[in-house]
């Protein structure tokens, strides 16, 4: 990576050191805990699918039964495998039998423990086989069709109806979209279960379900063939079901998932113990499944001023990077988030935004970086909005961003209409083509506005990260260091789903993940 900003490498190293210490604190905390959602993810990995007659997912019924029997602190896998072995049923049928109290969930007696462990290992290994198969399928698509030029153009669909979404997605793919994200129904992040089945109603988005993932995957595979370019599917490994979402993503060939260490805590008031524990497991799943994760620090700038709070975004990128690397993700899997959110009427705003975008590019040279378009200063004046989005596209192309979220002229008005996206794709492709090698031709004036701005932001990030390291991440969140929002370790939703592990806790999926990660680490990416 050519260095154009004259950034202080000592400052970058100090940031990584502090973020590394913060990541160690978080992962040390998570290592001693499990959550109801991690245990449900284990069951999904082991092959449990479907819901009961009230559409409550079977994995919830089994984990609730395990919690009621006091079994969770040692992990659900062993008692569940014992039930599968004793009954001779498939994992889903055994789960249904447990839900209907036809089969009891108990720790195996000593005599049968080894056999139950063997069953658990083979169910977990079957899940790994599915994930390996999914990875290979994606790899073959990419080898055969390619991914197109970068930045990857990323659009959202959000009609509420998965079947309507597939139509929109295919039209987008034809117009040049390389990533299609299905925005979830508002408040799904706060559900402590994943709804079942194909869904046709949602508010502000479409429910993320296993069936919907498959339906969209099929549509995008069809579109990929039509346009001769692999179109990636994106959804959310976030909220209370983060580990399960990552697991479904791994099984159903999602390619990109939103997954942020702090987003749920700050913006959805999810308990920090819960989400940080879920985070560690879900990142391992994403790492093993070859998913790209997109982090969400760009959201800080929707509540804080984008000029004043620029360093909080950079600081969070360092934290997300350090946690992710420790969970086995490779830099090529890290879509670290940032955004163009400054007031467009600020003098030299474009220079500051270019400084920020180029700075992230130089500090995280091997990460794709997820660049988010203006939303905060979009007004409903669609003509002005289209110009703001054009500025954004130019900044993105000239600073070498990896994943480019398309700005919509109708941002702040409604979820995009079919032509909003095609117009955005057309204009962005035009700018990307017209300015393809602009970045290579540019050098920044030494000590000029852009270099100075980048150095100041980096310097401020050093200060913030060292402060957070000294306070501890939990303390820093309580003190409102990110997005001006304060959260306490006991506050927020989902704390009741956190369980401190007992000696003897056993999770065969974790062992499978370690094996998959070791295998991936040996591969060249």
């Amino acid at each position, binding site marked *: 990576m050519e260095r154009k900003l004259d950034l202080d490498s000592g400052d970058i190293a100090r940031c990584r050191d502090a973020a590394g210490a913060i990541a160690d604190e978080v992962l040390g905390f998570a290592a001693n805990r499990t959550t109801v959602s991690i245990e449900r993810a284990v069951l999904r990995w082991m092959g449990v699918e479907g819901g009961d007659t009230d559409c409550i997912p079977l994995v919830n019924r089994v984990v609730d039964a395990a919690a009621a029997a006091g079994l969770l602190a040692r992990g659900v896998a062993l008692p569940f495998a014992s039930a599968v072995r004793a009954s001779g049923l498939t994992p889903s049928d055994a789960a249904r039998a447990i839900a209907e109290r036809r089969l009891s969930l108990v720790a195996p007696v000593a005599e049968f423990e080894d056999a139950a462990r063997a069953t658990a290992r083979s169910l977990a290994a079957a899940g790994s086989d599915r994930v390996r198969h999914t990875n290979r399928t994606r790899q073959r698509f990419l080898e055969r069709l390619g991914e197109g030029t970068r930045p990857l153009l990323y659009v959202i669909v959000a009609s509420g109806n998965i079947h309507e979404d597939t139509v929109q997605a295919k039209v987008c793919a*034809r117009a040049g979209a390389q990533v299609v994200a299905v925005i979830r129904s508002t408040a799904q992040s706060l559900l402590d279960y994943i709804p079942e089945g194909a869904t046709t109603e949602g508010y502000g988005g479409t429910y993320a379900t296993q069936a919907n993932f498959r339906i969209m995957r099929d549509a995008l595979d069809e579109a990929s063939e039509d346009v001769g370019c692999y179109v990636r599917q994106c959804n959310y490994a976030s909220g209370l079901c983060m580990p399960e979402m990552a697991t479904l993503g791994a099984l159903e060939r999602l390619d990109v998932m939103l997954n942020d260490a702090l987003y749920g805590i700050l913006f959805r008031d999810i308990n920090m113990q819960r989400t940080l524990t879920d985070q560690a497991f879900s990142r391992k799943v994403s790492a093993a499944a070859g998913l790209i994760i997109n982090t969400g620090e760009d959201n800080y700038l929707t509540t804080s001023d984008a000029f004043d709070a620029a360093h909080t975004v950079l600081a969070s990128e360092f934290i997300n990077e350090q946690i992710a690397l420790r969970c086995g993700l490779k830099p090529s899997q890290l879509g670290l988030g940032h955004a163009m959110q400054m007031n467009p009427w600020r003098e030299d705003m474009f220079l500051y935004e270019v400084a920020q975008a180029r700075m992230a590019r130089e500090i995280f040279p091997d990460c794709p970086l997820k660049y988010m378009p203006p939303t905060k200063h979009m007004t409903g004046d669609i003509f002005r909005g289209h110009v703001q989005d054009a500025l954004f596209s130019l900044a993105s192309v000239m600073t070498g961003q990896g994943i480019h979220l398309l700005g919509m002229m109708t941002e702040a008005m409604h979820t995009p209409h079919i032509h909003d996206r095609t117009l955005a794709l057309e204009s962005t492709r035009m700018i990307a083509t017209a300015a393809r090698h602009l970045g290579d031709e540019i050098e920044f004036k030494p000590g000029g506005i852009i270099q100075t701005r980048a150095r100041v932001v980096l310097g401020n990030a050093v200060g913030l990260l060292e402060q957070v390291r000294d306070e501890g991440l939990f303390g820093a969140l309580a003190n409102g260091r990110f997005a001006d929002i304060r959260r306490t370790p006991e506050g927020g939703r989902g704390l009741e789903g956190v369980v401190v592990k007992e000696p003897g806790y056993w999770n065969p999926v974790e062992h499978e993940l370690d094996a998959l990660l070791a295998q991936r680490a040996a591969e060249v990416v």
Partner: protein
Amino acid sequence: MTTRDDSPARAVSGLDLHAVGPYGDTLGDGIVQVSFSLPVPAGPEAREAARRLAVQMGLNEPQVYHEADLGYGFSFWILYGKCRHHVDVTRIVVPKIDTAPLSFEEINALVLEKAGRRLRIVGACTGTDAHTVGIDAILNMKGFAGEYGLERYPAFEVINLGSQVSNATLLSKVRETGADAVLVSQVVTQKDVHLSNLAEWVDMVEADGLRQDLLLLCGGPRITHEVALELGFDAGFGAGTTPRQVAAWLAQKWVQHLR
């Protein structure tokens, strides 16, 4: 702000306010631009369909200036035409916020002198709405557009419940705190979810017998004062509202309420 020209509004010469229509470059030309997609592929028949639709929309001499096939059976159209309809502007009455603009100091003085105590304000983003940008801009200390939020006013005690608060939770919080006014923010408007949620809130307050003791406000980018009144609120605040406008309204309405 964003416009350079702050010349005063004045009547356009030759205009008949009883019959006002769109203006392109000549008074009375009626010029309108429309764009839309059709669920049919682009082509001569689709072009004629787009044109006929424009005629039915009330546009004379519609011209298709752009057509694009979007694939998978869809097409996109940009047309111009001459609107044949007019409105009588002299007959239009729109309910507006009628309270006087007051300064930070005047608001505090009015409340503390006339009411003799701080007003207790509860705010929330209700229903499934997770977008707190609006309510935070009005309530939080930091404020919006260079003005302090209501938390900064000595005249107000603010309880901001944040996002995704159910109407039931909000009601119990209102009872618990003895609130004087409630601000409800609604940003997500897909399929008019905000309207049903706001209507439900007013119904619940009335059913609970609290309506006459409370000032009910709502706000959001798609909210107007008129819609708010129709839904049974005392006021509605739309996009671009500053905290001081809300504060001035609260102070004056509460003093009226005391009388």
